[in-house]
């Protein structure tokens, strides 16, 4: 592995061989073919699913083009979030400033679409050219009577994770602005689910069966009104370690709402998520409902998984995803299918995540932070993986190496959360790993 960037050595460990803690939350090295994105990307993906808000991207055209409807975050109502609005800054705006353009764009859009709130994303050059986005937002807020919220997400200003934090800041300007709502005794907010492939709807159904009211989801199938009254909920249930913890912490401090971290991937984590909530509310009936739900789901799911498990038993998987929390769930979910995780990494994991991963994985598993295609393909070769789980940039590399692939990112086509999600996951992994195409790779000559 001598070809790897020397300075990256600390960001790669093999369980059982190195005892050192993995180095993470570092900036990527200049010159690396990193799979990571930027601050803007982090903020954009978190706020994007709020379907009745206006999302305006202040900057040159690219940032708006590349994020136009790329996230499969479903809305049961408005589709405004799927359009792409940009101030499309030109050279003369860079010289003279883009504030006026932003003001006009916002005024025009708000008049036309009557959104419930507006988010204004600052891209790289906005801070550099000195636009006072806050001031423009304040002015439009005053004139139009809706919240126009600046999202200061200049791309260079940290990592994607910092973008999550900035998005949380934007959300917290909405949370607590509607005091009129009175939820039931047992009420929660779901934080960190984005309703990819309709996953939120699955979870909402589960919680409903438990007798728990969902006050808001941030931000899957999100609505401004629900976010305004989110502070009325009794508990915050937070998924995905990276994106929403900041907001949960802030809501705890400000409104005294406790939060718990959960994951909805795989049987174990999904069931825990339901039990934990029931335990929190200390309600025997709710716990009984949870047990029943889990029993019923599992009694159907386990036998249904069996045929897939038989075919997948002993196969090896490599995981490289955005957040490490997801990776943890995936290791467990793969284990349920009889598969062993041989490589696991993330773009934005923190020390706690990696510690957990290290405990969870078998000896010999390579654990890596902020990896790149060369490393990943080397690891796959070294470990003889049969499956790769990742996002859009990893898919073709995996395929070129002759590996099955499962998209666990924005472009997932099937819901992977919940019990039905576990079933979908098994089917997808099975279909890809056992595809007849793999036997044709070597030509007959």
């Amino acid at each position, binding site marked *: 592995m001598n070809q790897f960037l020397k300075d990256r050595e600390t960001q790669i460990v093999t369980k059982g061989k190195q005892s050192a803690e993995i180095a993470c939350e570092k900036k990527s*090295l200049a*010159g690396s073919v990193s799979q990571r*994105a930027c601050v803007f990307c982090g903020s954009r993906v978190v706020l994007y699913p709020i379907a009745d808000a206006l999302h305006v991207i202040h900057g040159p055209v690219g940032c708006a083009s590349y994020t136009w409807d790329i996230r499969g975050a479903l809305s049961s109502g408005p589709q405004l979030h799927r359009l792409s609005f940009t101030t*499309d800054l030109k050279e003369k705006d860079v010289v003279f400033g883009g504030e006026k353009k932003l003001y006009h764009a916002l005024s025009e859009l708000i008049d036309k679409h009557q959104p419930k709130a507006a988010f204004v994303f600052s891209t790289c050059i906005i801070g550099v050219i000195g636009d006072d986005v806050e001031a423009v937002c304040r002015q439009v807020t005053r004139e139009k009577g809706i919240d126009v919220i600046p999202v200061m997400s200049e791309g*260079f200003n940290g990592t994607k994770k910092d973008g999550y934090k900035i998005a949380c800041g934007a959300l917290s300007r909405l949370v607590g602005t509607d005091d009129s709502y009175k939820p039931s005794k047992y009420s929660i907010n779901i934080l960190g689910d984005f309703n990819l492939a309709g996953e939120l709807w699955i979870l909402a159904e589960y919680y409903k069966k438990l007798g728990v009211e969902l006050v808001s989801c941030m931000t899957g199938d999100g609505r401004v009104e629900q976010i305004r009254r989110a502070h009325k909920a009794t508990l915050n249930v937070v998924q995905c370690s990276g994106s929403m913890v900041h907001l949960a912490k802030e809501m705890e401090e400000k409104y005294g709402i406790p939060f718990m971290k959960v994951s909805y991937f795989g049987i174990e984590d999904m069931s825990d998520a339901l039990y934990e909530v029931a335990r929190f509310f200390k309600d025997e009936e709710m716990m009984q409902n949870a047990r029943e739900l889990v029993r019923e789901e599992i009694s159907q799911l386990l036998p249904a998984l069996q045929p897939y498990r038989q075919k997948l038993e002993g196969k090896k998987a490599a995981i490289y995803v955005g957040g490490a929390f997801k990776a943890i769930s995936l290791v467990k979910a793969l284990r349920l299918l009889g598969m062993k995780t041989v490589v696991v990494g993330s773009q934005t994991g923190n020390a706690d995540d990696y510690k957990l991963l290290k405990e969870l994985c078998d000896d010999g598993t390579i654990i890596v932070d902020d990896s790149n295609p060369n490393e990943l393909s080397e690891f796959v070769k070294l470990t003889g993986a049969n499956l790769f789980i990742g996002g859009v*940039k990893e898919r073709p590399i995996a395929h*070129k190496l002759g590996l099955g692939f499962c998209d666990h990112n924005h472009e997932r086509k099937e819901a992977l959360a919940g019990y039905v999600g576990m079933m979908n996951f098994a089917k997808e992994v099975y279909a890809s790993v056992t595809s007849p195409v793999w036997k044709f790779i070597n030509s007959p000559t």
Partner: protein
Amino acid sequence: MILRHTTKEVKERTALTVNPAKTCQPIGAMYAALGVHGCLPHSHGSQGCCSYHRSTLTRHYKEPVMASTSSFTEGSSVFGGQANLLQAIDNIFGIYDPDIIAVHSTCLSETIGDDLGQIVGKAKDDGKIPEGKHVVQASTPSYVGSHVTGYANMVEAFVKYFSFNTNEKIRQVNLLSGWVEPSDMREIKRITEMMDIKSVLLPDTSDVLDTPMTGKYKMYPKGGTTVDEIVSMGNSMKTVAMGEWCSKKAAIMLDNKCKVPFSLTDVPIGLSATDRFVQALSTAGKVSIPEIISEERGRLIDVITDMHQYFYGKRVALWGDPDTLIPLVEFLVDIDMKPVYIVSGTPGKRFDKRMEEILSEKVPEAKYKNGPQADMFLMHQWIKEEPVDLLIGNTYGKYISRDEGIPFVRLGFPILDRIGHSYFPTVGYQGAIRILEKILGEIMDEQDAKSPEESFELVM
């Protein structure tokens, strides 16, 4: 209706682009650089830019797309990106070992005033560029032009850096194909070979973004124009530059620097543009047009004749990039269709002039617009005013197609939801037949689906 927000009345907008019909320069620079052998594109800016371009190209080609980034931080935005780029150059040659690094700038690095030429010069002085390796650079701020200009700037940068006239004329023709697919580049080479002309095509993404599956991953696939080839372009007899927006800059550079004259022609999409291309090749290569090419042309005309009734009078809306739209619109007019709405987010004054030449007589009612606010929102408004029979453009037309129930042929960049563009060319006479096949497929499917039982036809 996903586009339920589109209103019918077109109101003048000045500050706002909705659903853009373009993207930014750097992705074009990245695509062009991928068409040079052993070259790693490098994005001098924030990490997100590089990640977005790679993702978009990957979605379009379903292929690994490699590029590195200067990974700007807050510090770089204050003190400049020189340190990042120097470190990047060092790291890239040390680890990824390309023959060439093709650096392009971004809006951020341009706004803070980074001078790529000066930084690369310093890298050279500091001995960070190993013997026999190269760093090429192009200025591509996102607030100027579009992805198309980024492509043109990078191609120009390659010939500026490498091409050299050693006073030994080679019997060879330079081909600048413009921003077309790997399949199109293959087809352009095939046509040139059929005419028995030795050529160098720059860039050449065939065998880079359409590579076979072998079970092995190669960071630098076998395709791409080689350094030797680009150097030799300075000794060629002539350059055939296809497309004013994408190829003219590099052609002028070759003329100025190496005294290789050029003929500027359109990207050979459709009948007339391919005629002109073949003619330009024949002049440049001093060869006559072989029978085999005339036969391909004849087959195209045969298809047009056979199917004319289905094309005649159909109203078409198109969007995309000027270099492909101009010959495509001309082709539609040639086959008696009516291209009535055309938008391109890419600026450039010649667009209006070319469209007027093609359309003023045959389709006087046509509306066209390029540059700011020439976006998919405007296109949708026009369509709402008076509908069309067919849409032709990149994937972003699928919302209009669905909401308005209009048949849709995917052509252009990006295509995120269909395959085929990597493998089946749309340039040349054969490519034109493919365009017709796609148009007819859509029109006839529509007819089959919508016609009443009594007029549902078996034979069409």
